[in-house]
């Protein structure tokens, strides 16, 4: 079966990060008239709107985009929150790696290594219980000291902190790649 213009455009909208404009479609589908393309786009919008579907195609910034139906937001949010629990932001990951390898460590020390304030990332890690407070440092200001938790070990499938890959091991892995380049 020949692929319909409608199905082709649908796949293009799907893989576009930005709203897909009719102009872009016309550049790719040169053998179709502007009218054909506009009709197909309208058909796509209508068909998703009329179906009992969780997703819609809507117009935005002069282009077309897939999105979930607005009324399904509560469930989408629930999923994203659930996912969030098992995921880390790049900032949180960086902070966690510093704590893992440099524990016990204070917030000021983490921020110094990152060259960026780590307070927000640290809060995320504490909320996820990947990091815990284990006391105060006997130094001016008596700052809190942080360590990784047991949950941290389970999360990464480690038996103990000794099982963390050493910097030498990672260096070996990453450096040979540079040789090859």
């Amino acid at each position: 079966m020949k692929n319909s213009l409608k199905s082709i455009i649908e796949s293009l909208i799907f893989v576009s990060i930005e709203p897909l404009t009719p102009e872009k479609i016309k550049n790719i589908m040169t053998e179709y008239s502007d009218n054909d393309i506009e009709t197909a786009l309208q058909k796509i919008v209508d068909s998703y709107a009329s179906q009992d579907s969780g997703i819609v195609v809507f117009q935005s910034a002069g282009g077309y985009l897939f999105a979930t139906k607005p009324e399904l937001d509560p469930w989408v949010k629930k999923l994203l929150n659930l996912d969030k629990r098992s995921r880390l932001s790049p900032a949180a990951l960086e902070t966690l790696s510093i704590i893992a390898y440099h524990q016990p460590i204070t917030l000021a020390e983490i921020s110094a290594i990152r060259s960026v304030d780590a307070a927000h990332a640290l809060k995320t890690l504490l909320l996820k219980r990947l990091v815990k407070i284990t006391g105060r440092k006997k130094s001016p200001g008596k700052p809190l000291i942080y360590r990784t938790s047991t949950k941290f070990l389970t999360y990464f499938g480690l038996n103990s902190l000794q099982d963390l890959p050493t910097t030498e091991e990672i260096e070996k892995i990453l450096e040979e790649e540079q040789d090859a380049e």
Partner: protein
Amino acid sequence: MTDTYQVKLEIFEGPLDLLIFLIKKKKLEIHDIPMATITRTYLEYLDDKEQINLEREAEFLVVAALLIHIKSQMLLPREASLEDDMDPRKILVERLLDHQKIKAACNLLREKEKDQMLTWQRDFLPPITPSDELDFIEVSLFDLAEVFFTLMKRQERERVKILKGKEFSLKEKAQEIIAHLKENGYLDFQAYFAEQRSFEEALFAFFCLLELIKNKVVVAIQDSLFSTIKVWLREEFVT
């Protein structure tokens, strides 16, 4: 020798590939390889230096050594005939069979890869209600170690020396210095730092000393340029 025999060695991913190729070319049964024949063929192949990929030479030679070893084992006169599981060829055969299986699996995975390359998934999220931390990623142990390593490398480049979070107490160190002064009258700057157990501790002691000087607890005196600095306790603290 046929034309296909002239295939360059590089097309073989490793010595086992070459060995299997030779076994098939000679139409030999993998379970019952005539060691003398196959060893000779294998060595002939390696003999042509031009065909050898230098990076992999070592591994090809390891297998050559293994073949010669097996051949020699089989030539040794023995009192009793070898039991089946003591046949030196057995390990080689098992490795070859396992290798063939892996190769077949590779072909199947390659097919699947080809199929999958035709479908496109998104690696970005569609527009959803804005949330502050949508850039969450699933992380692995490798990610954790890699991020840390990259971070350390970056710092090394910036030549920033980071002190490890050792627990030194300013108060304890100050007391230690004062005790030393009370006992010895003065403190030789160079000698004292040489005694410190680590660079970090020395650095810490230095800060501590600066603090004591600032608070006018001790006084540091250098007799002449380039001579050692001596630290004395101020009279009011000597008691």
